[in-house]
């Protein structure tokens, strides 16, 4: 999950944020890290680029990107399916 945090910070240009600042269950959007809709789209790009996972329905976004943990779980579930 720490790799994922580093990737999120790089993808979203969160330069003042360090991986250890993001708690595993901290909400990423609005009240948490304050991400917006464009960040959500960039996270979709991240999944595609780093993990070859295609999230084609933007509606799924809020569920998958609720926290680093939910994102990691989604990645694990979908990567194993690909193998």
């Amino acid at each position, binding site marked *: 999950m720490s790799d994922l945090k580093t990737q999120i910070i790089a993808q*979203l240009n969160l330069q003042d944020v360090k991986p250890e600042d993001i708690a595993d269950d901290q909400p990423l959007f609005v009240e948490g890290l304050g991400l917006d809709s464009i960040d959500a789209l960039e996270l979709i790009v991240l999944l595609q680029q780093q993990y070859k996972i295609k999230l084609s329905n933007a509606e799924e976004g809020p569920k998958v990107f609720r926290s680093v943990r939910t994102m990691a779980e989604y990645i694990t579930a979908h990567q194993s399916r690909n193998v």
Partner: protein
Amino acid sequence: MKLLPEDIYITASCIISHHVVYKNEHAIFENKEPDVTAFLVAAYHHFQLQYPKFYKMDNLSKLGWLATELLLKDSFHAGKYQPEAIGVVLANASSSLDTDIKYYETAKDIASPALFVYTLPNIVIGEICIRHHFNGENAFFVFDEFDAGFMEQYVSNLINNNILQSCICGWVELLDDQYKTVLFLVEKGGSAPNILFTKKNINKIYQSENG
């Protein structure tokens, strides 16, 4: 019957060009960092600005946003006007070409939404308005070169007709490692030692960093 328009003044100016930031024609920051992004981020840190979204902006927006921040600092009382009475009128030569090219590079693999949203020149105006909650009229013009006469005419018209009370206007140009922004805070009914908002004075400030 036409009432004589009240005088309009330049109540502050900010220039960022050739590694130097000027406020009211005085250099207030210099950094020889050759990379544009690194230079703009260095200035952001130097002035201790707190706006994490700055990092996410494209270079054109970083430049315009930063210049506006320094233009308004200690020079502007936001409470003086209604949000819809404050406008932004900007122009440049290269539109959003700098980001268009970067976005195009990503489109070969996966098109970047975060870059695409900056492939329009007026997004810099959006960023400025979001930061300061300005709701007034805004426009972005594309010219070969800075046209002080046009700025005077256009912005004076907005203020004389009571469409705006105050306007941030000027030039925000950036392409690769070349950049120059000259922004003016323009208000009605200022007074000396403020500078009258005329073509001559606009040009004088625009050219001031050269000499």
